[in-house]
């Protein structure tokens, strides 16, 4: 049971021995289809008898409101913003993720520290500094990285949501308009994710537009983790 560890010294007063659940992280940039796959995975896991909690970038009870206000005002500096996000993440880790793991849930998280670190680095935070800050985080059982190239990402975003201020990194003034800025910002983010693949042991799945195909790969990646006989027999009968 358990087998959880932290990247660094971890959280004061919180042990990992009684964490029975599984922590599954889905990472990737904006518009790559993470939430679609989280939804599908959740349904699939629940159908096989797992209690699932899905958490996303919804803000924490502690820092959520403050972050929202800060973003609206655009007045926080880069280091401040990075630490504000880290506070928000720590609150969710301690109050949502860890209690759910203790109760034996499968925790599916839509993004984790990796998105936060990539954003911080692209905004000028020192990479080593930000990695050290996030050493309090719990190591996931598995981190799946939905990878997309910039050309496909542009097509997806235009088809779905359009460009938005933060996803285009407009605060960084990288380009003349939202399109230029989006391309530059997302290219830099993707480069940061790629750099993390090895040190953080990402399982890379190419995020093609074919949802079924991606989901089949996802299931095959997650399945060995949930070592339950009935799950195996049920899936093979599917």
């Amino acid at each position: 049971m358990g087998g959880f560890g932290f990247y660094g010294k971890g959280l004061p007063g919180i042990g990992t021995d009684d964490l029975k659940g599984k922590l599954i992280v889905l990472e990737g940039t904006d518009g790559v289809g993470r939430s679609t796959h989280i939804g599908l995975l959740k349904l699939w896991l629940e159908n096989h008898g797992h209690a699932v909690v899905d958490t996303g970038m919804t803000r924490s009870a502690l820092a959520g409101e403050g972050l929202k206000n800060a973003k609206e005002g655009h007045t926080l500096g880069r280091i401040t913003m990075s630490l504000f996000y880290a506070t928000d993440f720590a609150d969710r880790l301690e109050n949502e993720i860890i209690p759910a793991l203790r109760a034996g849930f499968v925790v599916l998280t839509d993004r984790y520290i990796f998105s936060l670190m990539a954003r911080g680095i692209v905004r000028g935070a020192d990479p080593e500094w930000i990695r050290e800050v996030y050493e309090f985080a719990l190591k996931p059982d598995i981190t799946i990285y939905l990878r997309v190239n910039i050309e496909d990402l542009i097509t997806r975003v235009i088809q779905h949501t359009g460009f938005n201020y933060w996803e285009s990194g407009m605060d960084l003034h990288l380009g003349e308009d939202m399109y230029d800025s989006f391309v530059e910002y997302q290219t830099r983010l993707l480069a940061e994710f790629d750099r993390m693949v090895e040190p953080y042991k990402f399982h890379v799945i190419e995020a093609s537009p074919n949802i079924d195909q991606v989901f089949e790969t996802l299931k095959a990646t997650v399945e060995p983790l949930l070592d339950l006989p009935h799950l195996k027999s049920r899936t093979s009968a599917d």
Partner: protein
Amino acid sequence: MTMKMYGKHRFPGKLFIVEGIDGSGKSTQIALLQKWLESEGYVTFFSEWNSSPLVKEVTRRGKKKRALTPMTFSLIHATDFADRTEHHIIPPLKAGALVLADRYIYTAFARDVARGVDPAWIRGMYQFAVKPTLAFYFRISLDEAMKRILGGREAIKYYEAGMDLHLSEDIEESFRLFQGRIIAEYEKMVTEYGLVVIDASRSIEEQQVQMREIVLEALTGTKKTRIRKWVDLGSMVKVSRG
């Protein structure tokens, strides 16, 4: 755009900070120092702990609801400090001002480590801080500090007493235990960071004289402004009469 680390900042201004437990008298001393520096014609800028307008509200609510763990307590204070650094410390230092800070990174190192946070981790997190020109540590015994605090003001607060650590059910006893741990952390930092120790059991005047002597030495070559504000002249008159 790149992030500068502790000790790497080079600014024309100077940064003087005070540290010490509650009741050590550090705030009184830095206020007197500021009065004097202004009367000498320097441009000063005062910055206090927990003062970023954007972050303060989050901290206040978290404390009120007792929703802070040692980790989030540590991170939210670092966030606040980062905002202070980026908005209230670096710009005036760049402009050549004297920045005075009541509590600095050493407060976080002392308190958070007393709460069980890893000492190396927290030092790493605060690497973005500007290294102070001078860091004064007001050393006082726990008994003396307790006497001043219990005599002087409203009830001790939950987190100040370290009640979240469940050291004791009794708030005064918990405060004593927690502040004792904090003193131990400060004492370790005296050599680590070269803190200038001021004996806070001496009279206010004696401490201030000592502080001014040390600051004066650090100010050689620092420009004074020729522009004196009318308000400052007014306060000078009051000081000289008193």
